[in-house]
């Protein structure tokens, strides 16, 4: 019983994580809008301080 419960728990956990990831992929805070246009003038800011 204990082993089955544990496996069920793991399966539920994996399913939950998967759902959360899928939801995030299609959410854009709200929804990912496929008509987004990449901006023309910007740069990566990771190398900047602050």
């Amino acid at each position, binding site marked *: 019983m204990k082993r089955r419960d544990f496996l069920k728990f793991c399966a539920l956990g994996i399913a939950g994580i998967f759902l959360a990831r899928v939801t995030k992929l299609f959410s854009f805070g709200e929804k990912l809008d496929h008509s987004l246009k990449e901006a*023309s003038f910007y740069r990566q800011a990771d190398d900047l301080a602050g």
Partner: protein
Amino acid sequence: MKKVECELCPRHCRIEEGGRGNCRIRTNVGGKLYSLVYGKPCAVHIDPIEKKPFFHILPGSSAFSIATAGCNLHCKFCQNWEISQRPPEETQNMDLPPEEVVRQAMAHNCRSIAYTYSDPVVFYEYTYDTSSLAQKQGLLNVLVTAGYIEQKPLVELCKVIHAANVDIKSMSDDFYRNMSEATLKPVLDCVVTMKKMGLWVEITNLLVPTLNDSEKDIRSLCRWILQNGGADMPLHFSRFWPLHKLQNLPPTPVETLTRAWDIAKEEGLHYVYVGNVPSHPGNNTYCPNDGKLLIGRQGFEVTENHVIDGKCEYCGTQIPGIWR
């Protein structure tokens, strides 16, 4: 978490993943910056070109006018705040890709497309792509803008734009900081660059009672225009209406507008106009040489036109502008 830095306007917003720029319409998704409003205007109208205002471009013609939500200034006196100070989720947006803008402009016999109402700087990519297509079809592209843009994107945009009306709200940097959350210098640089790039430029100054309507303010503006744009650069004084965050102020008195009109002519500007006051003589264009009425206007309607082949019909003086 990849941050991006927008380089479109002097704010240089640093935007976290999922965040937005100050303009409310540019966002970081997966370390790339996107426009949220490309092809999605919230305002589409056919207006007389005089409404923009442009008084020296194709008089009596129609401008297909578009705008999206958002703006990179936050003027307390904004006359279009209901779209400029909102994100696109809070405006009613249409699906109108660039090619459709051009098609509809031509279908409605518009001679120009105006990128206006909010600020075309913030919907830059949409403005640029639409302008590129429109130019190939023989349409004029005209901007109505606060001019708060970095030089590099401005130079690129100027290659597909024919004319601009730029708001110079004041010659005081403090005014820009306190009233618009911006700075003055980039705006002045914008006007200078546009002129160097060969655009036709007209200036608008919204006169807000007690804030930028002193004689010193007006003369300072006129002298800057004379020095940097020349006597032939048109200047429109526009009447403020109490809106947005300045509802405590009265509308600009007509006497203030008339005084500004007189001062600007005294300073040597050839083409000075008064906006939002029907039947004011400042609605008309006069020949700087013989003083004759060249273009009569009643509101935005042209009632008579004596500019023939770009010249005064009476004395032959060249009148600057885009007349065909």
